[in-house]
Protein backbone atom coordinates (compact mmCIF):
# COMPACT_ATOMS: atom_id res chain seq x y z
CA UNK A 1 0.00 0.00 0.00
CA UNK A 2 1.47 3.35 -1.02
CA UNK A 3 1.11 6.34 1.22
CA UNK A 4 0.67 9.95 0.19
CA UNK A 5 3.48 12.43 0.60
CA UNK A 6 2.73 14.34 3.76
CA UNK A 7 2.34 18.10 3.85
CA UNK A 8 4.70 19.92 6.23
CA UNK A 9 1.88 20.69 8.64
CA UNK A 10 0.68 17.08 8.55
CA UNK A 11 4.14 15.89 9.56
CA UNK A 12 3.87 18.02 12.69
CA UNK A 13 0.26 16.94 13.30
CA UNK A 14 1.19 13.25 13.05
CA UNK A 15 3.64 13.70 15.90
CA UNK A 16 1.25 15.75 18.02
CA UNK A 17 -1.88 13.61 17.82
CA UNK A 18 -0.76 11.26 20.56
CA UNK A 19 -0.23 14.31 22.78
CA UNK A 20 -3.59 15.98 22.17
CA UNK A 21 -4.85 15.54 25.74
CA UNK A 22 -1.55 16.82 27.10
CA UNK A 23 -1.76 19.86 24.82
CA UNK A 24 -5.35 20.54 25.89
CA UNK A 25 -4.20 20.25 29.52
CA UNK A 26 -1.32 22.65 28.94
CA UNK A 27 -3.77 25.22 27.63
CA UNK A 28 -5.45 25.10 31.05
CA UNK A 29 -2.48 27.15 32.21
CA UNK A 30 -3.76 29.88 29.94
CA UNK A 31 -7.48 29.61 30.74
CA UNK A 32 -7.42 28.83 34.48
CA UNK A 33 -5.69 32.04 35.48
CA UNK A 34 -2.77 30.66 37.52
CA UNK A 35 -1.32 34.18 37.80
CA UNK A 36 -4.66 35.63 38.94
CA UNK A 37 -4.71 38.14 36.09
CA UNK A 38 -8.54 38.24 35.66
CA UNK A 39 -8.26 39.81 32.21
CA UNK A 40 -12.01 40.07 31.73
CA UNK A 41 -11.70 43.01 29.37
CA UNK A 42 -10.52 40.45 26.81
CA UNK A 43 -12.46 37.55 25.29
CA UNK A 44 -10.86 34.15 24.81
CA UNK A 45 -11.86 32.05 21.80
CA UNK A 46 -12.91 29.14 24.03
CA UNK A 47 -15.91 28.07 26.06
CA UNK A 48 -15.02 28.94 29.63
CA UNK A 49 -17.46 30.74 31.91
CA UNK A 50 -16.23 34.11 33.14
CA UNK A 51 -18.09 33.55 36.40
CA UNK A 52 -15.55 30.82 37.17
CA UNK A 53 -13.12 32.10 39.79
CA UNK A 54 -10.38 30.55 37.66
CA UNK A 55 -11.25 32.25 34.38
CA UNK A 56 -8.49 34.36 32.88
CA UNK A 57 -10.61 35.82 30.10
CA UNK A 58 -14.24 36.58 29.31
CA UNK A 59 -16.40 34.01 27.51
CA UNK A 60 -17.15 35.26 23.98
CA UNK A 61 -20.57 33.63 23.90
CA UNK A 62 -21.57 35.20 27.21
CA UNK A 63 -20.33 38.57 25.96
CA UNK A 64 -22.23 38.30 22.67
CA UNK A 65 -25.42 37.36 24.53
CA UNK A 66 -25.03 40.17 27.09
CA UNK A 67 -24.29 42.71 24.35
CA UNK A 68 -27.32 41.46 22.46
CA UNK A 69 -29.42 42.04 25.57
CA UNK A 70 -28.03 45.58 25.73
CA UNK A 71 -28.69 46.09 22.00
CA UNK A 72 -24.99 46.65 21.33
CA UNK A 73 -22.89 45.10 18.60
CA UNK A 74 -20.00 43.12 20.15
CA UNK A 75 -17.25 44.13 17.73
CA UNK A 76 -14.43 42.59 19.76
CA UNK A 77 -16.09 39.23 20.46
CA UNK A 78 -17.42 38.73 16.91
CA UNK A 79 -14.18 39.97 15.37
CA UNK A 80 -12.12 37.63 17.52
CA UNK A 81 -14.26 34.60 16.66
CA UNK A 82 -14.22 35.37 12.93
CA UNK A 83 -10.45 35.92 12.89
CA UNK A 84 -9.64 32.84 14.95
CA UNK A 85 -12.19 30.77 13.04
CA UNK A 86 -10.77 31.89 9.68
CA UNK A 87 -7.32 30.82 10.82
CA UNK A 88 -8.01 27.60 12.69
CA UNK A 89 -11.66 26.57 12.37
CA UNK A 90 -12.67 24.00 14.94
CA UNK A 91 -9.09 23.05 15.83
CA UNK A 92 -9.86 25.31 18.78
CA UNK A 93 -12.59 22.87 19.84
CA UNK A 94 -10.42 19.79 19.58
CA UNK A 95 -7.12 21.05 20.91
CA UNK A 96 -7.62 24.17 22.99
CA UNK A 97 -11.08 24.42 24.60
CA UNK A 98 -11.17 23.49 28.31
CA UNK A 99 -14.82 22.44 28.17
CA UNK A 100 -13.92 20.07 25.36
CA UNK A 101 -11.09 18.67 27.48
CA UNK A 102 -13.49 17.94 30.33
CA UNK A 103 -15.71 15.96 27.98
CA UNK A 104 -12.73 14.23 26.38
CA UNK A 105 -11.53 13.08 29.79
CA UNK A 106 -14.98 11.68 30.58
CA UNK A 107 -14.90 9.93 27.21
CA UNK A 108 -11.87 7.96 28.36
CA UNK A 109 -14.03 6.19 30.96
CA UNK A 110 -15.01 2.85 29.42
CA UNK A 111 -18.80 3.09 29.47
CA UNK A 112 -21.26 2.14 26.72
CA UNK A 113 -21.69 5.11 24.39
CA UNK A 114 -24.81 6.19 22.57
CA UNK A 115 -24.47 7.39 18.99
CA UNK A 116 -25.68 10.90 18.31
CA UNK A 117 -27.59 11.33 15.02
CA UNK A 118 -25.71 13.61 12.64
CA UNK A 119 -28.66 15.95 12.14
CA UNK A 120 -28.47 16.95 15.80
CA UNK A 121 -25.34 18.94 14.97
CA UNK A 122 -27.61 21.55 13.39
CA UNK A 123 -29.22 22.19 16.78
CA UNK A 124 -26.10 24.18 17.70
CA UNK A 125 -27.19 26.84 15.23
CA UNK A 126 -30.62 26.96 16.90
CA UNK A 127 -28.87 27.50 20.23
CA UNK A 128 -26.67 30.21 18.70
CA UNK A 129 -29.47 32.08 16.96
CA UNK A 130 -32.04 31.54 19.70
CA UNK A 131 -30.43 31.67 23.12
CA UNK A 132 -27.37 33.78 22.27
CA UNK A 133 -28.82 36.31 19.82
CA UNK A 134 -32.63 36.45 19.52
CA UNK A 135 -33.83 35.77 23.07
CA UNK A 136 -31.34 38.16 24.69
CA UNK A 137 -32.14 40.83 22.09
CA UNK A 138 -35.92 40.62 22.40
CA UNK A 139 -36.39 39.53 26.03
CA UNK A 140 -33.22 40.60 27.80
CA UNK A 141 -30.87 38.91 30.19
CA UNK A 142 -33.62 37.84 32.60
CA UNK A 143 -35.26 35.35 30.24
CA UNK A 144 -34.95 31.74 31.48
CA UNK A 145 -33.59 30.65 28.08
CA UNK A 146 -30.83 33.28 28.05
CA UNK A 147 -27.70 31.22 27.25
CA UNK A 148 -25.87 31.87 30.54
CA UNK A 149 -28.90 30.68 32.51
CA UNK A 150 -28.94 27.31 30.77
CA UNK A 151 -25.23 26.89 30.06
CA UNK A 152 -23.67 23.93 31.90
CA UNK A 153 -20.26 25.65 31.95
CA UNK A 154 -21.50 28.14 34.53
CA UNK A 155 -22.95 25.34 36.61
CA UNK A 156 -19.84 23.16 36.41
CA UNK A 157 -17.26 25.92 36.76
CA UNK A 158 -18.97 28.28 39.20
CA UNK A 159 -22.07 26.91 40.93
CA UNK A 160 -20.63 23.46 41.66
CA UNK A 161 -17.31 24.73 43.11
CA UNK A 162 -19.27 27.23 45.22
CA UNK A 163 -21.44 24.46 46.64
CA UNK A 164 -18.45 22.20 47.31
CA UNK A 165 -16.33 24.92 48.91
CA UNK A 166 -19.24 26.03 51.14
CA UNK A 167 -19.89 22.44 52.18
CA UNK A 168 -16.22 21.86 53.00
CA UNK A 169 -15.98 25.15 54.87
CA UNK A 170 -19.13 24.43 56.86
CA UNK A 171 -20.83 27.54 55.46
CA UNK A 172 -24.44 27.83 54.25
CA UNK A 173 -24.62 26.16 50.84
CA UNK A 174 -25.51 28.52 47.97
CA UNK A 175 -27.74 26.10 46.06
CA UNK A 176 -28.27 27.05 42.43
CA UNK A 177 -31.83 26.95 41.11
CA UNK A 178 -33.48 23.68 40.11
CA UNK A 179 -32.96 24.28 36.39
CA UNK A 180 -29.22 24.81 36.82
CA UNK A 181 -28.92 21.72 39.01
CA UNK A 182 -30.84 19.65 36.44
CA UNK A 183 -28.65 20.93 33.60
CA UNK A 184 -25.43 20.15 35.45
CA UNK A 185 -26.67 16.67 36.38
CA UNK A 186 -27.83 16.01 32.81
CA UNK A 187 -24.46 17.21 31.53
CA UNK A 188 -22.54 14.86 33.82
CA UNK A 189 -24.73 11.91 32.83
CA UNK A 190 -24.45 12.79 29.14
CA UNK A 191 -20.64 13.01 29.04
CA UNK A 192 -20.43 9.44 30.33
CA UNK A 193 -22.95 7.94 27.93
CA UNK A 194 -21.92 9.69 24.74
CA UNK A 195 -18.90 11.56 23.40
CA UNK A 196 -18.73 15.35 23.63
CA UNK A 197 -22.50 15.83 23.86
CA UNK A 198 -22.30 19.56 24.54
CA UNK A 199 -19.93 20.22 21.64
CA UNK A 200 -21.88 18.14 19.17
CA UNK A 201 -25.44 19.15 19.99
CA UNK A 202 -25.48 22.46 21.81
CA UNK A 203 -22.26 24.47 21.67
CA UNK A 204 -22.87 27.84 19.96
CA UNK A 205 -19.14 28.50 19.81
CA UNK A 206 -18.59 25.17 18.09
CA UNK A 207 -21.33 26.15 15.63
CA UNK A 208 -19.35 29.24 14.63
CA UNK A 209 -15.99 27.48 14.35
CA UNK A 210 -17.54 24.43 12.68
CA UNK A 211 -19.23 26.64 10.09
CA UNK A 212 -15.86 28.24 9.36
CA UNK A 213 -14.16 24.86 8.86
CA UNK A 214 -14.68 25.10 5.13
CA UNK A 215 -13.04 28.51 4.97
CA UNK A 216 -10.30 28.16 7.55
CA UNK A 217 -6.63 28.54 6.75
CA UNK A 218 -5.78 25.24 8.43
CA UNK A 219 -7.88 22.77 6.52
CA UNK A 220 -8.34 19.07 5.83
CA UNK A 221 -7.73 17.66 2.40
CA UNK A 222 -8.50 14.25 0.93
CA UNK A 223 -5.94 12.99 -1.55
CA UNK A 224 -8.46 11.16 -3.67
CA UNK A 225 -5.88 9.30 -5.71
CA UNK A 226 -4.44 7.86 -2.48
CA UNK A 227 -7.75 6.93 -0.86
CA UNK A 228 -8.45 3.22 -1.05
CA UNK A 229 -11.95 3.69 0.37
CA UNK A 230 -11.12 1.23 3.12
CA UNK A 231 -13.35 3.14 5.55
CA UNK A 232 -10.62 3.25 8.19
CA UNK A 233 -11.04 7.03 8.62
CA UNK A 234 -14.70 6.50 9.53
CA UNK A 235 -13.68 3.96 12.16
CA UNK A 236 -11.09 6.34 13.56
CA UNK A 237 -13.63 9.18 13.77
CA UNK A 238 -15.38 8.91 17.13
CA UNK A 239 -17.84 11.63 16.15
CA UNK A 240 -19.59 9.65 13.44
CA UNK A 241 -18.45 11.89 10.59
CA UNK A 242 -17.44 10.53 7.20
CA UNK A 243 -14.09 12.27 6.76
CA UNK A 244 -13.54 10.78 3.30
CA UNK A 245 -16.76 12.38 2.08
CA UNK A 246 -16.68 15.63 4.03
CA UNK A 247 -13.21 16.32 5.41
CA UNK A 248 -14.30 19.82 6.41
CA UNK A 249 -17.64 18.88 7.91
CA UNK A 250 -19.09 21.53 10.25
CA UNK A 251 -19.48 18.90 12.99
CA UNK A 252 -15.79 17.96 12.94
CA UNK A 253 -13.86 19.06 16.04
CA UNK A 254 -10.51 18.46 14.33
CA UNK A 255 -9.18 15.77 16.63
CA UNK A 256 -7.34 14.77 13.43
CA UNK A 257 -7.43 11.05 14.27
CA UNK A 258 -8.69 10.35 10.75
CA UNK A 259 -5.35 11.50 9.35
CA UNK A 260 -3.85 8.32 10.83
CA UNK A 261 -5.47 6.06 8.24
CA UNK A 262 -3.15 3.68 6.41
CA UNK A 263 -2.72 5.43 3.05
CA UNK A 264 -2.52 8.86 4.75
CA UNK A 265 -5.06 10.07 2.23
CA UNK A 266 -6.52 12.59 4.67
CA UNK A 267 -4.16 15.37 5.55
CA UNK A 268 -4.09 18.59 7.48
CA UNK A 269 -2.67 21.41 5.42
CA UNK A 270 -2.86 25.09 4.79
CA UNK A 271 -5.51 26.28 2.37
CA UNK A 272 -2.84 28.16 0.44
CA UNK A 273 -0.52 25.19 0.03
CA UNK A 274 0.54 25.03 -3.58
CA UNK A 275 -1.43 21.93 -4.60
CA UNK A 276 -4.25 22.10 -7.11
CA UNK A 277 -7.30 20.36 -5.74
CA UNK A 278 -11.02 20.73 -5.36
CA UNK A 279 -13.18 20.20 -2.31
CA UNK A 280 -14.51 16.68 -2.36
CA UNK A 281 -18.25 16.69 -2.76
CA UNK A 282 -20.47 14.87 -0.32
Amino acid sequence: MSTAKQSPIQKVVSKLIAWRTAIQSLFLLVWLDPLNLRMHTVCAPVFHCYACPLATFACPIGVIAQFSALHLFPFIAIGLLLAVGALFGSIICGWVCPFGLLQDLAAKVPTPRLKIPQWMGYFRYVVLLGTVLAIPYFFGEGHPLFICRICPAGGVEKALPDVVSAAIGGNPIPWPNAIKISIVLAFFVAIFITIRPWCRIFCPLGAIFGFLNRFSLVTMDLKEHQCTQCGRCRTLCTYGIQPDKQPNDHRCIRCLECTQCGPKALQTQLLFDDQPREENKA
Partner: protein
Amino acid sequence: MSIKLRQQLTIAVLAVGLGLLAWGAKFHAQPVFSENNDKGLLTAESKLIKEVSIGGVVRDPYGKLRMTYTGEAPQSCPT
Protein backbone atom coordinates in the same frame (compact mmCIF):
# COMPACT_ATOMS: atom_id res chain seq x y z
CA MET B 1 -16.68 24.78 -3.78
CA SER B 2 -13.53 25.65 -5.67
CA ILE B 3 -10.26 26.10 -3.85
CA LYS B 4 -9.98 29.61 -5.24
CA LEU B 5 -13.32 30.62 -3.77
CA ARG B 6 -12.43 29.06 -0.43
CA GLN B 7 -9.18 31.01 -0.34
CA GLN B 8 -11.00 34.23 -1.14
CA LEU B 9 -13.58 33.56 1.56
CA THR B 10 -10.84 32.82 4.10
CA ILE B 11 -9.17 36.13 3.37
CA ALA B 12 -12.49 37.95 3.48
CA VAL B 13 -13.57 36.41 6.81
CA LEU B 14 -10.14 37.03 8.31
CA ALA B 15 -10.14 40.64 7.12
CA VAL B 16 -13.65 41.27 8.46
CA GLY B 17 -12.74 39.63 11.77
CA LEU B 18 -9.56 41.62 12.22
CA GLY B 19 -11.36 44.80 11.14
CA LEU B 20 -14.13 44.32 13.70
CA LEU B 21 -11.61 43.41 16.37
CA ALA B 22 -9.50 46.49 15.70
CA TRP B 23 -12.53 48.79 15.52
CA GLY B 24 -13.97 47.43 18.77
CA ALA B 25 -10.67 47.57 20.61
CA LYS B 26 -9.59 50.98 19.39
CA PHE B 27 -12.63 53.09 18.60
CA HIS B 28 -15.91 51.63 19.84
CA ALA B 29 -17.18 53.27 23.01
CA GLN B 30 -20.60 53.86 24.49
CA PRO B 31 -21.84 56.43 27.02
CA VAL B 32 -22.59 54.66 30.28
CA PHE B 33 -24.44 56.51 33.01
CA SER B 34 -23.69 56.05 36.66
CA GLU B 35 -26.19 54.39 38.97
CA ASN B 36 -27.64 57.54 40.51
CA ASN B 37 -27.15 60.47 38.14
CA ASP B 38 -27.29 61.37 34.49
CA LYS B 39 -23.65 62.03 33.91
CA GLY B 40 -22.64 59.73 31.09
CA LEU B 41 -19.09 58.52 30.77
CA LEU B 42 -17.79 57.28 27.43
CA THR B 43 -16.78 53.68 28.08
CA ALA B 44 -14.57 51.58 25.82
CA GLU B 45 -15.92 48.25 24.58
CA SER B 46 -13.23 46.31 26.41
CA LYS B 47 -14.37 47.90 29.67
CA LEU B 48 -17.96 47.07 28.77
CA ILE B 49 -16.96 43.43 28.28
CA LYS B 50 -15.73 43.34 31.84
CA GLU B 51 -18.83 45.08 33.13
CA VAL B 52 -21.30 42.73 31.40
CA SER B 53 -19.41 39.74 32.77
CA ILE B 54 -20.42 40.80 36.28
CA GLY B 55 -23.85 42.18 35.41
CA GLY B 56 -22.53 45.67 35.93
CA VAL B 57 -24.45 47.39 33.12
CA VAL B 58 -28.11 47.36 32.11
CA ARG B 59 -30.17 49.32 29.62
CA ASP B 60 -32.62 51.43 31.62
CA PRO B 61 -36.24 52.18 30.63
CA TYR B 62 -35.05 55.34 28.85
CA GLY B 63 -32.69 53.38 26.63
CA LYS B 64 -29.53 54.50 28.39
CA LEU B 65 -26.75 52.18 29.49
CA ARG B 66 -26.56 52.43 33.25
CA MET B 67 -24.26 51.00 35.88
CA THR B 68 -25.92 48.69 38.40
CA TYR B 69 -23.54 49.51 41.23
CA THR B 70 -21.51 52.23 42.81
CA GLY B 71 -18.17 51.52 44.41
CA GLU B 72 -17.11 47.92 44.70
CA ALA B 73 -17.99 45.76 41.69
CA PRO B 74 -20.11 42.60 42.02
CA GLN B 75 -18.07 39.42 42.18
CA SER B 76 -19.90 37.51 39.46
CA CYS B 77 -22.69 37.73 36.93
CA PRO B 78 -26.35 37.56 38.02
CA THR B 79 -27.03 34.33 36.12
